[in-house]
């Protein structure tokens, strides 16, 4: 590996453009919170951050150190794009769940506390455990500590990718471009940057791959040196995230098989021992600690298979691309759809040429073989987007498969293209293509109407006012004893957990959703509420309250929400001893009578 030299090259001016791009994104979000539509400014900000970096990464002159610095700058800047979207509050649905877990650990000094929304998450406490360290040592909130932990993970992700690609390709230029292509994965900008267990596990996964690749390239007598980092990495991933731990086991097993197929031996550097370790730890954790994972992942995977079958057999219509869940979700504009589809087309071209070069140059390299398979599999997962219950599975898989795709597309050599014998034209075209891939990936991976923030807090007459769900959570935090339980719609429930600091049940298990949406009460409902220990029920007439990604903000004038019938709220007044103790218009809280 070429030693990174201390040449800074164009890092400083590009850091300035990245900072200005971030500022543009932040201004765009502030304008969006104020009710304007600064979409163009936002995307311009993203391109101001990324295009100078992409341009420099395509050059021949940049040193390894400069490329590494640029990759770090790109990864961290794009992470801050997510941070400036909604600081200083978590607003992604999973973030509120994990922040609740972190607060529980800090307040009660133990792991594995109960989580009513995603009961599986406390069984994988890696992220929240790590966050609790910073919370404890500093007194910071789960938001601040979580942003720092995920930021550190992001930094290790991009450095890990770069070093992995340097090791496998032997070229810092290819590695820089591959890392740049990786930022175009559908989940890089938002989903993968949220405070969620996968956001920590995936970077550890990539660093683990890098470590295995480095071990492979090292002399045999170094073998033992790699053992401790590898074992710690595998164990940490197993404790942090179910799917990533299985991905580690599968990847290492595949790698071991490929090594054997190429070299016909199981000895050094074949990583089969680590594959076995990963499998044993993942299964052991699943069975001994996290057996609720079966109930969590089983239906998701089962429904995905069923949806694929139904769609393929024509029993169910295919899911429309860029389609939200409800009629109130705005459509993605045609131009944005075009960019997203163009991004996929560009990736396909890159992979086509990349696979040709792979065959000529890398087909004896174990990592490159798996990357080639992953790059093809990625396009298979795109088909899953057509099946209603399978699109999310496909979307999540893309983060892992994109590691291979980024490598294969980067070795395509397309950045060497010299149209009209002018190298700069080829570089410009490649830079533009990277821009399209980044923007297109962001559009494909995150709903169009959620790219910019919505107002959850606002300034009025020099003071701060809060949106109805946030105000409810703040009221509960100040006025309702911590041990009292709520039943609520899924958006209100998440806010009641963080920052409301209460246990709030929502959704289908138990069936709070139907209790809230029906216009009359049935016989089974009060016993269920009592069985679950629910003392307060939050009745929210806003349809959007059942949307875990959109239900947190103010209603905007001219954009009034669809409302449930009034009787969905007032019916709770007929329960024995129930009283409406809180009202903010669309949201009411009923205190249920004590069981006799």
């Amino acid at each position, binding site marked *: *590996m070429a030693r990174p030299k201390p040449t800074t090259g164009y890092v*400083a001016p590009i850091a300035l453009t990245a900072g200005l791009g971030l500022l543009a994104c932040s201004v765009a979000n502030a304008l969006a919170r104020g009710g304007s539509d600064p979409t163009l400014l936002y995307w311009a900000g993203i391109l101001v951050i990324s295009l100078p970096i992409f341009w420099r990464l395509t050059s021949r002159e940049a040193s390894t150190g400069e490329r590494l610095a640029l990759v770090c700058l790109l990864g961290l800047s794009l992470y801050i794009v997510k941070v400036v979207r909604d600081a200083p509050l978590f607003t992604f649905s999973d973030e509120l769940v994990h922040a609740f877990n972190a607060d529980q650990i800090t307040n009660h*000094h133990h792991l594995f506390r109960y989580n009513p929304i995603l009961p599986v998450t406390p069984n994988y406490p890696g992220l929240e455990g790590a966050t609790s*360290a910073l919370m404890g040592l*500093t007194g910071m909130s789960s938001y601040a500590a979580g942003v720092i932990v995920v930021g550190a993970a992001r930094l290790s992700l991009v450095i890990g990718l770069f070093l992995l690609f340097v090791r496998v390709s032997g070229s810092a230029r290819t590695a820089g471009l591959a890392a740049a292509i990786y930022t175009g994965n559908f989940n890089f900008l938002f989903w993968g940057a949220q405070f969620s267990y996968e956001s920590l596990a995936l970077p550890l996964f990539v660093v683990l791959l890098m470590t295995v690749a480095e071990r492979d390239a090292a002399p045999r007598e170094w073998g033992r040196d790699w053992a401790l980092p590898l074992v710690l990495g595998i164990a940490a991933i197993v404790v942090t995230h179910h799917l990533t731990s299985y991905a580690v086991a599968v990847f290492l097993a595949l790698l071991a098989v490929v090594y054997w197929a190429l070299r016909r031996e199981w000895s050094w550097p074949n990583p089969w021992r680590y594959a076995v370790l990963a499998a044993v730890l993942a299964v052991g954790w699943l069975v001994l600690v996290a057996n609720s994972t079966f109930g969590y992942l089983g239906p998701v995977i089962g429904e995905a298979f069923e949806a694929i079958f139904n769609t393929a057999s024509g029993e169910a219509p295919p899911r429309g691309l860029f389609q939200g869940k409800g009629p109130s979700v705005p459509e993605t504009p045609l131009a944005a759809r075009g960019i997203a589809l163009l991004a996929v087309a560009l990736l396909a071209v890159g992979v086509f040429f990349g696979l040709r070069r792979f065959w000529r140059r890398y087909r004896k390299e174990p990592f490159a073989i798996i990357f080639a398979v992953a790059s093809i599999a990625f396009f298979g997962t795109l088909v899953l987007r057509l099946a209603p219950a399978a699109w999310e599975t496909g979307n999540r898989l893309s983060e892992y498969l994109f590691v291979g795709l980024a490598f294969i597309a980067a070795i395509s050599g397309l950045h060497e293209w010299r149209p009209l014998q002018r190298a700069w034209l080829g570089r410009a075209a490649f830079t533009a293509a990277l821009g399209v891939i980044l923007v297109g990936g962001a559009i494909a991976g995150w709903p169009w109407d959620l790219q910019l923030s919505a107002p959850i807090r606002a300034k009025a007459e020099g003071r701060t006012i809060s949106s109805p769900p946030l105000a409810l959570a703040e009221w509960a935090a100040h006025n309702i004893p911590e041990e009292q339980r709520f039943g609520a719609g899924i958006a209100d429930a998440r806010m009641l957990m963080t920052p409301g600091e209460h246990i709030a049940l929502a959704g289908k298990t138990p069936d709070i959703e139907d209790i809230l949406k029906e216009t009359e009460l049935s016989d089974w409902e009060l016993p269920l509420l009592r069985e679950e220990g629910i003392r307060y029920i939050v009745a929210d007439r806003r349809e959007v309250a059942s949307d875990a990604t959109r239900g947190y903000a103010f209603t905007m004038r001219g954009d009034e929400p669809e409302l449930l019938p009034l009787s969905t709220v007032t019916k709770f007044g007929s329960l024995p001893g129930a009283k409406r*103790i809180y009202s903010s218009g669309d949201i009411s809280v009923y205190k249920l009578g004590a069981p006799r």
Partner: protein
Amino acid sequence: MRGHGDLRLVAALALLCAALGLLIPIPGVAAIFAVPLALLLPGYAIAAAAFAQRQLEWALFFVLGIALSLAVLILGALLLNYVGGIHPLSWAVLLVAITFVACLVAARRRGPTDRGPRWPRPRLGALGTILLLGGVVAAIAAIVLSASTVPSGDAIGYTQLWILPQAGTKGHEAQVGVRSQQQASLDYDLRIKIGEDEVVKRSFRLAPGETHVVHVRAPAGSEGVLPVIATLLRHNRPTSVYRRVKGSLVAPGEPR
């Protein structure tokens, strides 16, 4: 650890960061010390111990430092969960102990030769430094702006009304709260009916974000549990009920 400048520095920094992180009461300032302690130093020490007899590239060493620190936090939480609980002090002790032990192992394995990573010393020059600082300042401005609330004239304001038993009064007293989340100051009329009588009437003006709390108790001579109904009206619409909540009061002398 004589001769191992990097290891001595890491061990000393771990101790210093732990002490200052715990002692400084301002979270933002404490983080300056706690972040390296949590996210770099233990991983650096473990990488130094694991690769004591090799010269790793600095970039590799750096990323292993972060990733192994994250692994230490993840697995450390698991350990603390079963050994005394997860407390600030136990975190500090654990992280310092791991860093110390790993530094000692690294020093022993290295022997007399110093095999720490060779860190790059990038030269930026005056212009480069100014540009870099400009980028940092712009990024900080972006974050500060994002954390600021801005006016949102199209956001539809509203008002909260609630009634709750007053803590510690066994239900003999209640508080009725009104909090404005409106875009502008508004005048309100609050009527509270206890039992059959309307006993409290309040008119007040609330600015956005302001709260008005009224404390009520059951009238003298009343008996049993009395229903309480709080009705909020906006001053400009005196005949239209804006919000209504219900509670109860336990009469004086009555057990709850």
